């Protein structure tokens, strides 16, 4: 296991879940805590100067009592992509300095929902009861899809499930290279392994404990070979001095490693953040220069760079990508129709437009199969 887990908190109600036993077996050195000790630990964590540090070494095995599949919480001010989130847990053992999760969780431990029986039945019910078009479902919204997979082994089971599904595809989003267990499954093109990528400098300085870009790309090549569809997310793009060459070089490496025809989509999003993140990250890591750039309050209340600057950045990136893959399906994460038109020359006026645009990437592998 790559990430150190020092404590495992086990909720009473999941003690006997098979996945609980499986995970505990794989963590012989961790301290296992029950209800009373957990409360003490929670208090201690609240007092901690940096609860994140401690939280990222603490794994809680718990039950998801709500729905497992939920629509992605987009924002009405910008165009969203109609993705659905399969909630497998929350928190992440990696520690990106720009990570938005730092603002959202006040008890920042890692949580895995071990009631996977409920997860699969909920998923099945969701796909049967809502047979509209195709579903694009992703596991990496409140966590990294694969970071805890060496413990849970869930990704392979999900890949198997989706490989049989005719109206859905799964997007596994990661900054790790933990794809090998997935290679045992033939995904029939219905599973997209998406790698979040960034410039080398940002990866090295800001994506603490994440796999280096080269390892992510090598994992992409292995997954491609096994028939997985591949995606890349340039998010957040952080325009520090020299960003043009830095991102160009990653783009070139991508296309040297993966065949453009295997890539379902490439997304891009220039760094944006809820204003509180700047101070939270500063308290944890010291002042990070890029958070002090000319951010202004965007329509959704998040801090964003001026639209002209975002447009220039996207245009640059798109040009570099198009030189290597003319037909690449590029999309912008949470941008306005104006930015879409300026950068990609596409009229993307509603969430439905973007949904169809991305659905078309997976249609040939679902109904079309």
């Amino acid at each position, binding site marked *: 296991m790559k990430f150190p887990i020092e404590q495992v908190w086990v909720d009473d109600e999941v003690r006997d879940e098979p996945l609980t036993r499986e995970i505990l077996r794989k963590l012989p050195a961790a301290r296992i805590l029950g209800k009373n000790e957990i409360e003490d630990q929670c208090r201690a964590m*609240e*007092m901690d*100067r940096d609860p994140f540090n401690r939280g990222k070494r603490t794994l809680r095995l718990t039950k998801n009592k709500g729905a497992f599949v939920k629509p992605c919480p987009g924002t009405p001010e910008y165009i969203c992509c109609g993705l659905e989130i399969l909630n497998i847990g929350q928190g992440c053992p990696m520690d990106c300095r720009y990570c938005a999760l730092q603002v959202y969780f006040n008890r920042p431990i890692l949580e895995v929902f071990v009631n996977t029986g409920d997860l699969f039945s909920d998923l099945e019910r969701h796909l049967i009861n809502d047979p509209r078009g195709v579903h694009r479902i992703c596991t990496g919204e409140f966590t990294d899809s694969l970071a805890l997979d060496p413990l849970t082994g869930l990704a392979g089971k999900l890949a198997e499930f989706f490989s049989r599904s005719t109206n859905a595809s799964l997007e596994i989003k990661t900054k790790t290279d933990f794809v090998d267990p997935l290679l045992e499954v033939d995904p029939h093109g219905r599973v997209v392994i998406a790698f979040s990528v960034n410039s080398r400098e940002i990866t090295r300085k800001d994506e603490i404990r994440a796999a280096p870009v080269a390892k992510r790309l090598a994992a992409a090549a292995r997954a491609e070979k096994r028939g997985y569809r591949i995606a890349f997310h340039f998010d957040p793009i952080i325009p520090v001095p020299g960003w043009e060459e830095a991102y160009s070089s990653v783009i070139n490496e991508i296309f040297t490693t993966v065949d453009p025809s295997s890539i379902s989509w490439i997304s891009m999003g220039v760094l944006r953040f809820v204003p509180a993140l700047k101070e*939270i990250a500063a308290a944890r890591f010291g*002042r990070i*220069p890029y958070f002090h*750039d000319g951010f202004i*309050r965007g*329509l959704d209340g998040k801090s964003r760079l001026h*639209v002209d600057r975002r447009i220039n950045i996207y245009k640059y990136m798109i040009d570099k990508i198009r030189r290597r893959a003319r037909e690449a399906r590029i999309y912008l994460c949470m941008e306005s129709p104006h930015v879409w038109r300026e950068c990609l020359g596409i009229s993307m006026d509603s969430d439905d437009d973007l949904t169809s645009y991305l659905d078309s990437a997976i249609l040939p592998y679902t109904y079309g199969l």
Partner: protein
Amino acid sequence: MNWLNHSTPMIVDPRSVDLEDRTYLIPCYSNLSALTKSIQRIGILNSPLVQQLADGRMIPVAGRRRLQSTVALGLDHIHVRLLPEAVPIAEGFALAFWDNAAHRVFDIACTAVVIRRVFELFPRDVAARDFLPILGIALKGPRLERLRAIGGLESSLLEAFSHGRIHEKTAALLCEMEAETRLGLLDLTEKLRLNANKKAEIISWLFDLSVLEATPISELLAREEAKSIIFECDGTVPERAERFRELIRSWKFPELIARENEFRDWVRGQSLLEKMSVQPTTSFEDPGCVIEIRTDSTDEAERIVSAVKQHARPNQ
């Protein structure tokens, strides 16, 4: 132990007490004049508490302002209670704290100083149990740390904070700067008579620029454009203040300011009627505009609406 019971009454010359000593400081940034007048009229009801140190120095424990007033009044003797030298600093501070807490509400600047001192003198659990509840500050969360840092600022900054001339967030940012820089910034922004909101903007923009460009604020302010405003003798203070703010804003948001100027020129070129205005979307997020026309009556509004409809039709 209640050390107060072990204090002894005596008479001292208030000028012999080191009023600059900060060992037991619980500051108060309000004006001394009312207290001075009261002492002049009726004298001192409760004797200040002082402590004599091994080196012979006399320092105030409680009643520092009473001592300051007597000095201001030119009195040469005053009744005090002398605390034994053996009293540990933490206990002396607790005495000062409770003496103050009993008769005044701590403002936020005083709270910051007290928090800082409490954490220097007591373990965290004692601070949490005995002091923070009285101060009304939660034991966890960023605010505690922020106030703790602010408590170490120079007294001119604390005074500005106490009087609302700088906001808490601004004070917290100033903590991250060199003493000379922050005192210089306070001086500059006060000379330009900027209110707390404008100070907050300018100081945070300068701080951002300094972090982003890895350049000291003093170097940013030494740029010709800034210097010419800071040291200029022409123009009123509000005019210079506005120009200074615009300059720093243009450094911080160059694209936005370029767009604003472009838009302003464009509006000027439209020769709009007096009753009309055109506004861009927030931060020019998209190229749309909002046209506003004030009318004197609904009839006039109706005429304008129908003219606009006529005009808009061919493009529909």
